[in-house]
Structure formats: structure tokens, C-alpha cells
């Protein structure tokens, strides 16, 4: 087990966001964190690497209590891809080299440069290495951010909506690259995703979050319409197309109180 979180509580302005949440992540597996806006997904990720400090609870990574580690020590264990990304005025090479920061004392060594070139090659970014990040397309820039997290040589990757601003092709490419990195290096990984179908297709386990707690912890095969109704408030059907399970949303259930689907005459959603 690469990460184990127990009893996480986080309050923002006195309002509970996480309420006694437990979670564990395994090596070589990607866990998806799913739920509605405001369910606490992003907060959870930030509590896992102590960008936010949970008021209660423990996070252990590789059997080390994160609350007892400094920022750089944590950065050597956990790579993080934030949701909103700045286009830094650096070359792709320098932007990825930043990922070596937790390992660098005064100056980058030849090993650091080797790690960067290796990651750039893995991600197919080598032809862009000396371009400015600001000149890249959205998909390319997102790959740079993921490459930086991989250059940290972390044990664990946390990604907040890594595909949300990408077109279809780039979504698939980014997910494939992530899968490849996680499998080949035996990393643990957690990804916040809004796209359930992307999650079903690529992820090993799903954590469905509701109101700051884990509603259910399942494999993609175990997802059913009841869970989607309870977590998302959406009537949906699950179908199998060319071997992939897909969720087809039918309608939103009324907000309060939740009622059976037959009584919901709301409009169809795409």
C-alpha cells in the first residue's frame, strides 16, 4: 500500500468539507475520485499532500506520517498536478526540470538532466523540449505538467482533473500516458475526474465521494445505476459498447427530496 489516509476531517470557514474520510491507494493502480462539484474531491487531493492541512486524521505514505515531514520530503514522495495551470515563461525542458527541485541542493546534476530527458522521451515531448511552454497547445502543456510530476520521481501521483480542458484525442493520450507511467513504475495514483466514461475505461478503482465522505469504493465493473443516482442525482443506464462499459445519463433527479425515477419528468440530458 502506498498511501493510507484515516479519519480525515477538513473544515473550510467552519463548514465541514471532509468528514472522517478513509482512503488507501495501491502501487501500480490508478484510483479515480468521482463525485459532484463540492463533494470535496479537490480538497481531498490537497489534504493528501498537505497543501491543505486536515484538522483531524492521518495520512501515511510509504509508512511515513506526512505531518512529520517537511515540504521537500513530501515532494519527493508525492507528485501533484493542480487543476488550474499557469503557463510559466520557461522552456519545456526547464519547466520539467522544476520537478527535480525537491532533489536538487544547489544545482541540477547530470542525473537530474538525465531524468528530465527520459521523462520527456516517455511523454513524447522531446521535439518540443526547447520550445517555450507559453507557445504550446493545451494538450501539450498538460503533458508538460504531468512530465514535471513524473520528473519528481515520486512514489505517488495525485492529479486534479488532468483532462478537463482537453479535446477528445488529448484526453485519451493523456490517460494512456498516465496508465503507462503508473504501470511501468509501479506508482500509486489518484485522479479526480468528472468524466465517468473516461474513468470506467482507464481506472482500476473508483472512489465515489458524497458530502465529504466515501460513498462507495468499487471497481469499474461494480458501478451501477443506483450508485450514480445516489452520488450524482442522475438517472442513468449502463451499457456495454465494444467491450467498454459506458454510462448514458438520462435525466437529473429533482434536488430535494430524492424520489424514484418514474416520477421525474425533467428533460433529457445529453
Amino acid at each position: 500500500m502506498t498511501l493510507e489516509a484515516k479519519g480525515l476531517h477538513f473544515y473550510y470557514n467552519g463548514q465541514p468539507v471532509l468528514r472522517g474520510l478513509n482512503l488507501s491507494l495501491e502501487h501500480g493502480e490508478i484510483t479515480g475520485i468521482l463525485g459532484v462539484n463540492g463533494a470535496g474531491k479537490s480538497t481531498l487531493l490537497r489534504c493528501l499532500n498537505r497543501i491543505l492541512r486536515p484538522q483531524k486524521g492521518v495520512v501515511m505514505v510509504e509508512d511515513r506520517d506526512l505531518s512529520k515531514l517537511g515540504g521537500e520530503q513530501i515532494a519527493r514522495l508525492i507528485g501533484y498536478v493542480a487543476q488550474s495551470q499557469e503557463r510559466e515563461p520557461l522552456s519545456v525542458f526547464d519547466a520539467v526540470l522544476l520537478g527535480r527541485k525537491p532533489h536538487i541542493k544547489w544545482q541540477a546534476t547530470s542525473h537530474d538532466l538525465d531524468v528530465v530527458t527520459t521523462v520527456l522521451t516517455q511523454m513524447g515531448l522531446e521535439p518540443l523540449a526547447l520550445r517555450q511552454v507559453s507557445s504550446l497547445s493545451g494538450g501539450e502543456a498538460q503533458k508538460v505538467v504531468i512530465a514535471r510530476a513524473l520528473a519528481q520521481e515520486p512514489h505517488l501521483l495525485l492529479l486534479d482533473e488532468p483532462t478537463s480542458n482537453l479535446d477528445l484525442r488529448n484526453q485519451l493520450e493523456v490517460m494512456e500516458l498516465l496508465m503507462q507511467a503508473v504501470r511501468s513504475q509501479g506508482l500509486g495514483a489518484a485522479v479526480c475526474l468528472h468524466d465517468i466514461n473516461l474513468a470506467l475505461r482507464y481506472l482500476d478503482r473508483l472512489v465515489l465521494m458524497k458530502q465529504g465522505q466515501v460513498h462507495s469504493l468499487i471497481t469499474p465493473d461494480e458501478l451501477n445505476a443506483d450508485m450514480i443516482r445516489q452520488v450524482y442525482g442522475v438517472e442513468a443506464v449502463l451499457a456495454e459498447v465494444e467491450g467498454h462499459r459506458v454510462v448514458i445519463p438520462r435525466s437529473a433527479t429533482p434536488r430535494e427530496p430524492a424520489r424514484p425515477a418514474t416520477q421525474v419528468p425533467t428533460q433529457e440530458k445529453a
Partner: protein
Amino acid sequence: MKHHHATLPAPVAGDLGAELISRYGAGLRRRYLILVALGVVTILLALQGVAVGAYDLSPYKVLLILLGQGEGAQSVVVFNIRLPRIVAAIVTGWGLGLSGLVTQSLLRNPLASPFTLGMSHGAAFGAAFAIVFLGAGAVSTSALYSAGSGDFMFSSLYAVTLMAFAGAMAATAVIILLARMRQMSASAVILAGVAMSSLFMSGTILIQYFATEVEIATVVFWTFGDVARSNWREILLLAVATLLVSAYFLRRRWDLNALLAGEETAQALGVHVTRLRLLGMFLASLLVALATAFHGIIAFLGLLAPHISRRLVGGGHRLLVPCSGLVGAVLLLAADTVGRLVVGSGSLPVGVLTSFMGAPLFLYLLLKGRRL
């Protein structure tokens, strides 16, 4: 600093990786050359700056005098009158260029600089306050004509400097508090800076009503910065501070680079963002306070230098820190020399010229409205 060469083994990435590292190293060396070239330009401008004036000397003659080959009168002119002014321009330009860079990087705001954030005016107000109300001005008329007459007394030097620092810090504190409120945009923070500048300027004018004529003369010079009145003690103080602060930011260059990628990303890379920002702004305020207390408000220099430097050496702070300092020095030297040439026997305060250069850039950045 050491470079990384193509000969490095790249076991995983292979030949392609080695070639990439070699090209990366070549790009880095090219930018180091720009830095060296700037250093040479600084030296040449300095020699020219010492040569220009009522007592005409050639740059070559200046070089000889500096090497100890000069005659009595010439040596006096060079060492007591011209050189302090030139060294002051270099050190002050470096300090302001560096504080400009640091405020821009730490606040992630391309419009930030000591001048646009109100730090300079805060420092000038503090200095004026010390002179008029704390009696620091009794001997500090020398601040006006220090080359010829006596020096700043030590106690008044400290009083003026400390109060200037307090003024700059007051402006900085307000800016940091405002910048912390998340919804505040880059331009809104600068508007707050404008308000602060205006407030401090009014304060400085108000103080003049309580001042003697001599004190007023001393206070007025802060409104348009000038390096003409410099003495070695002030220069030494500013130089030591600038050197230490430069070393600190060079040490922290990875943290500053990480901040370019966003606050959350920086935190995830192990940067203690709040600590870096507070300590960094504190140090920048210190440099601004010293520079302003000794040489008045030099407008826009801190805005110009980092933007020119980014064009020259890119966005990485390993090169940006020394480059912003050098560009600041070159700009101030050039402004001072041109100012002396244009107005004949007298001289145009450097602040006038830096305003002419800086204000258009500021408007351009405002129009472009891009993030750092």
C-alpha cells in the same frame, strides 16, 4: 557556474537524450554570454560616465587614474566626485532592478515594481518624516551636496534609513494583504499601489509645512531621484545589502521558478510559499528603502529592468536575478550620463529619464494584460 555537456552519459534516454542535453547546454551558454556582455557594457558605461563632466577626461585616462596612474587634481575629481556617483548608480540600479524582479515574481504580477506598488513613495515619506520630525535633517543637508561638504552623520543616516524602511514596509504590508485576497487582480493591486503612492506623496508635501527651508530642500529632492549626491558610506551600506539580498534570491532561484508555475504547484514542489513571499518582500523593501533614502524616488527602473531581462535571458531566475541587477545598473548609468550631457553644466535627475522610459512600458503592459 558549471555547465552540463553533451558528454554526460544518458543511460535511459540514449543518444537522443544526450543530444537534447547538449542543445540545452548550448542555449544556457548563449544566455550566459549575454550576461557577460552586459557586464562589459556596464564597465564601459561606467568609464564613460566618469570621463564626462566639466573637467574633461578621456575614458582611457580614467582607466589609468583608476589604476593609480593619475595626477593629483585628476585623481581628486575622479575619486571624490565622479566615482561615487557612478558606483552609486550601479549599486542603486542593481538594487532597484532586483527588487523589481522580486516583487513581480513573488506577487506574480508583471506590473509590480517598487515604484508602482507605492514602496518608493513610502520610503521617501519615511525619510522625509525622519528629517523633519526626528531632527535627522539638522546635519543631513549634506544629503544634498555630500560630495563636497560633510557626510551624513551616522545617527541621522540610520534614522533616515530606518524610517524609510518603515515607510516602504507599510506600503508592502498593505500590498501583501490586498494580494492575499484572492479575487484581487494584478491591475487592481497596482491601483492600490497608486492610491498608496498618492497618500504618501501628500504626506510628504504636508510634512514640508512643518519644515525649515533647508529641510524642504532636502525633502524635495526625494520626489525625483538623483544619484548626484552620494558618499562612500551610503554606497557601502547599499552595496553590502544588495550583495546579500542578491545572494539570497540566487539561492532561492528554484523556489522563484516554481512560483512561476502557480502557487499550488510550487507548494507541491516543497516551496513554503508564504514564508518565501513574506521574507522576499521584506528584503525587497529593505533595498528600496536604502536606495530611496540615499537617492530619492527613481521611477519605473524596477519595472523596466526585469522586463528587459526576460527578453534577454528568458524567465528562469538563475539568470534573471543577475541580469535584472545588471540591466538596472546599465539603465541608471545611461540615464545619469545622458542627463548630465543634455543639460550642460547642471544635470537632469535620473528619475525624469527613467520615467520617460518606464511609463510607456507600463502602459504597454497594461494594454497587453498578460500574466507573468
